[in-house]
């Protein structure tokens, strides 16, 4: 993995995550002519979430390509482009619509470097708007990260803040390995201040968003805000919670995660995907193995239920909320 070139531009700005992602694509395309954006409706429409807005106007329809409607074809074509030396950034319109491309992803994208003893690396970034909470009808709110994290050869990155959306996308595009870049749909429109000139951090580093001494909430992407909210609410119960934002699921920043778990001795992993076999299982199992004697309680998980994603009017019952998180914190065997 190489680090994206540092930028020279102006000062801090306030924008949505969608805008920061758009800026990242824009800057990456400007900095490197081999970066090509492609996908369904990414051209004149600017994507259904407008993340690619204006790219065709600035870089032309070849650099920001409206493809035919076929996800395996899109990813397969991107593979060929990467073999030629381009750096494709592919948009999958929604998580569930990446499923048709699973064979290309599992059997080629993830494996090509290894299959060719390093001769054909595939620097492809696959952007996937992911998760729920936006009132989408069925097939529009899946959280599919576990399919990716289990697949050796892929990096899996998911920003939770506006600044990270920019920085991690730049770093992902600069990576010489394929990255599945999961964009939390429900955070697209949240605004905050960020510095586009801040040095781009490499992918693979977790960050502590809040420091507390009672226990740690370990999370990523769409669930960060609810964890921060829960940590605030926990104060009333006398719990002082840390919140760890993983940012990258693969590579997993074991060092940082272990350090915080060892220091507080209690942890809850939070994500909205189905719990059974979810990314939280790996995190809990791994941290338990590495920090066993520092744990005052088992690492608990608060996740979506083991059900297909609910219809919009019921989705709030499925998504981890403050109460459900506090409930888990309460079960961290404080009496011990």
């Amino acid at each position, binding site marked *: 993995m190489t680090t994206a070139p540092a930028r020279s531009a102006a000062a801090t700005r306030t924008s949505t995550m969608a805008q920061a992602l758009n800026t990242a694509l824009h800057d990456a395309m400007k900095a490197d002519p081999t970066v090509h954006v492609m996908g369904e409706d990414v051209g004149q429409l600017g994507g259904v979430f407008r993340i690619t807005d204006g790219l065709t106007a600035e870089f032309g329809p070849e650099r920001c390509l409206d493809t*035919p*409607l076929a996800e395996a074809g899109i990813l397969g074509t991107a593979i060929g482009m990467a073999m030629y030396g381009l750096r494709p950034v592919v948009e999958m319109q929604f998580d569930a619509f990446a499923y048709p491309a699973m064979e290309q992803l599992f059997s080629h994208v993830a494996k090509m470097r290894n299959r060719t003893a390093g001769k054909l690396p595939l620097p492809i970034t696959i952007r996937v708007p992911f998760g729920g909470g936006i009132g989408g009808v069925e*097939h529009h709110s899946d959280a599919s990260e576990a399919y990716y994290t289990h697949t050796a050869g892929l990096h899996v990155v998911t920003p939770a803040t506006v600044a990270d959306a920019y920085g991690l996308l730049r770093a992902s595009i600069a990576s010489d390995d394929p990255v599945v870049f999961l964009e939390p749909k429900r955070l697209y429109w949240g605004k905050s201040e960020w510095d586009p000139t801040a040095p781009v951090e490499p992918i693979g580093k977790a960050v502590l968003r809040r420091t507390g001494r009672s226990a740690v909430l370990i999370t990523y992407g769409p669930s960060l805000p609810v964890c921060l909210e829960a940590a605030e609410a926990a104060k009333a119960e006398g719990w002082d919670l840390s919140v760890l934002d993983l940012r990258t699921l693969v590579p997993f920043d074991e060092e940082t995660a272990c350090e915080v778990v060892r220091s507080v001795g209690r942890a809850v992993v939070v994500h909205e995907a189905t719990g059974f076999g979810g990314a939280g299982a790996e995190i809990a199992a791994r941290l338990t193995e590495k920090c066993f004697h520092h744990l005052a309680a088992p690492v608990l998980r608060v996740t979506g*239920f*083991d*059900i297909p994603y609910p219809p919009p009017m019921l989705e709030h019952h*499925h998504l981890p909320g403050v109460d459900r998180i506090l409930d888990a914190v309460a079960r961290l065997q404080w009496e011990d």
Partner: protein
Amino acid sequence: MTVLDHRHTAAVPGWLPGATAPRTDPEPLLPDAAPVRVLGTPALEKTDPALLRELYRRLVVGRRYNQQATTLTKQGRLAVYPASTGQEACQITAALALQQQDWLFPSYRDTLAVVSRGVDPLEALTLLRGNAHTGYDPKASRTAPLCTPLATQAPHAVGLAHAARLAGDPTVALAMLGDGGTSEGDFHEALNFAAVLHAPVVFLVQNNGYAISVPLTQQSAAPTLAHKAVGYGMPGRLVDGNDAPAMHAVLTEAVERARSGGGPTLIEALTYRVEAHTNADDATRYRHEEEVAAWREHDPILLMERGMRELGLLDDQLVQDAADEAEALAARMRAEFHAEPELDPMSLFAHVYAEPTQQLREQAAQLAAELAAEAEVHH
């Protein structure tokens, strides 16, 4: 002899060494050189007036349905609505061409076809309202759930048709797709399975010019989408999708051909999506008003009215009856959607499996406890 035996007729020798001829004659598979039309052609006079009246009535009601659903969306009563405004001729004939035992496999845009089959609008629109996934009973209505993952319903239609044929049951399946959907691998695999299995299935592609923002020219370089049929060994038909009697004729012929053992057909209906992709879409980003205006002149109701007027079939009574029926439907929709839907959070666990796993039972208990706690707070 099995129903699969059609595959072996006269097929093998063509592939022996020295063969020069294709296995089957491609000529009859090639689509019509020009889209089939009835309105504005001599064929109109030969069409049953009762059918024309029925089509007119259904078109008017269908248009009103689209308008009312769009209004409900603006009022926040539907989460999202992909209108079929301008495509009503395709929608209503898809329903009309089927017999009751036949199955319809609609996409998200085809709720009008579902309603035209007799499903209550409230049930047909449940998915888009957001209170539950499928709102109707697929078995009772012989209508598969509205399908969102593009083209994935096509192989389902093939499988159902194939199973019916094996059972000696003259049921036909009709799969509805968009022009964009033809690019998906599932479209290809479904058509190939259908032809190889000789399944009684009809594929109706509503080519409305766009897949969200992507125009057909960026979707396909084929002469017509109907030409794809040749590559599977099934006949392709090209039809004016805004000409209701033409649609009805072509669909009925294909459905009856399938029913009588003639195998599958691919139909491309040329139509246009007059509204944006859904209420969430901004169509001005990718197309010009002039294009839309031109198609508004080729509106299925306008064309139908013109044709019926020529024949003297559009009497005041018919116009009034159609308008009344349309208003009655709209009123029913307003009333039905005015009520807040009943929601049962515990239903989330009810149908994951025939019997919930132990884990699901625990999770259900957790949610039940949360709901009880909330209820307590509210009292």
